[in-house]
């Protein structure tokens, strides 16, 4: 079948969502995955944006931002950031969500703030400027702290899958095990890392992410090569089922501008 790696990633992410869940999506790939799930297998998946835009589906193409007219035109309710990110997300009400990552470590800690290239901002005992400044947390910190579970979407490259992230923008399992408990986070932590090559899931005890399954076009070797730590492989590692014709047709109806079909 003819599909792109981006399409496989979006579908694999969307499969993580179940009917009836309350979910929050960001813009771009994450929103496509979410609206695909709603169309494909979860008609009662309820989604809103961190701006407090409720009841809408995108019209006229993928929104450039989660507040623009493409996502606002047919909303049933507009509220605000404290409502969406505070009362619904940080409070622990949201069932599922998607966040992105520029860098990620084996405990699912996410960096979207800056790249210090091996150094950390403070490691030298003195602050150093970031080599590359990124976008910061946005609403991902609230999701990582509050959502019952969430998916991290990230391009599978060695530089992104770091032994230790330069900066923790959104906490995963921190140092692993029960380390989240120290901070009384209400949310359950990341349930999956969906990459361009496969799916990682946390060990139930250590919370270290291990390879759960890989995409038909990938392999265990390719994934290990592109991971910056010694990735463990699940004893029952499997191949992710490739998109069905219906899944793909549904995705392409959502992705009207074909943004995921660029190879």
């Amino acid at each position, binding site marked *: 079948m003819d599909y792109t790696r981006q399409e496989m990633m979006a579908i694999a992410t969307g499969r993580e969502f179940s009917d009836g869940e309350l979910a929050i999506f960001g813009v771009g790939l994450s929103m496509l995955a979410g609206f695909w799930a709603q169309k494909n297998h979860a008609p009662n998946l309820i989604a809103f944006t961190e701006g407090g835009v409720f009841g809408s589906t995108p019209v006229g193409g993928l929104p450039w931002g989660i507040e623009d*007219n493409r996502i606002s035109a047919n909303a049933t309710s507009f509220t605000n950031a404290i409502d969406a990110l505070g009362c619904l997300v940080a409070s622990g009400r949201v069932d599922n969500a998607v966040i992105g990552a520029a860098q990620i470590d084996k405990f699912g800690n996410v960096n979207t703030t800056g790249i210090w290239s091996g150094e950390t901002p403070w490691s030298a005992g003195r602050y150093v400027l970031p080599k590359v400044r990124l976008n910061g947390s946005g609403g991902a910190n609230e999701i990582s702290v509050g959502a019952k579970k969430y998916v991290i979407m990230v391009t599978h490259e060695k530089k992104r899958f770091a032994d230790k992230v330069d900066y923790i923008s959104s906490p995963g399992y921190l140092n692993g095990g029960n380390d989240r408990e120290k901070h009384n986070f209400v949310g359950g932590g990341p349930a999956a890392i969906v990459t361009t090559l496969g799916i990682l899931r946390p060990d139930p005890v250590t919370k270290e992410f291990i390879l759960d399954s890989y995409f038909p076009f990938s392999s265990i070797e390719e994934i290990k090569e592109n991971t910056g730590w010694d990735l463990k492989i699940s004893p029952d590692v499997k191949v992710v089922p490739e998109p069905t014709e219906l899944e793909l047709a549904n995705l392409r109806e959502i992705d009207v501008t074909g943004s995921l079909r660029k190879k």
Partner: protein
Amino acid sequence: MRNKLISMREAVAQYTWDGMQYAHGGALPVGTDSIAFGKEMLKQGRKDLNVISNCNTQQTNLMAAAGAIKRMEVGFAGLEVYGFANGLKRAVETGKTILEDYSNGSIPLRLLGGALNWPFVPATINIGSDEEWCCADRPDEYPCETKIPRIKDPYTGKECGAFSVLKPDLAAIHVTMADIYGNAIMLGTEWSRYELSRAAKKVVLQADFIVDTDCMRQYPNLVRIPDVVVDAVVYWPLGAWPQCSTGVYDSDEKEMFAMNAAL
């Protein structure tokens, strides 16, 4: 009640100064923001600004590129699907702008705390991550104990954080429509403009439309910014351009990319 309608030039001359704590509103990076007000600040040569920004927008991207921002507190520093904000990114990477990271949910809560004149705001978010431990204002201290200090919940004995509150010197807020007294309607997500309008010491509105007060009396529940919290009103059609004003105009894709490319 006083007629508060003044020119943009007058508003900037009267309500802004070098080194001030300036807040813009601001519905997410692509949405409705007081871009025209920011441009006039640059025209009048304002510098050394201490900016409170729930999210970066093209306003702060431009200001940072122009070297006018000394320090900025932010929840998100990008431009959503339009990418990184080049002007701000370079200003941070070269050390011209100090960027203090929070998240999209914590900035509005800190504004709410300022509006309520609270001593601090309980923090269940941003803690346990580098938003807590890494402080741009005191970069050599790690982990920083003073950015989001810990406090004990007297009910359970468990720890949470304490955010400092925000009371900017001025908030320049974009609204869809206002009357000459400062009653204002925002269409689309409020994001944190409601909290901002109560937290700031002075408030200037920039409105796409000026309407009669009788229009406000038709749907008083839409008037989320009442005249009592507003100091001045500026009429500036398309004032959020090239970003969008929900329900009126969408973001100008070509200009968004061109502007960012130029910064």
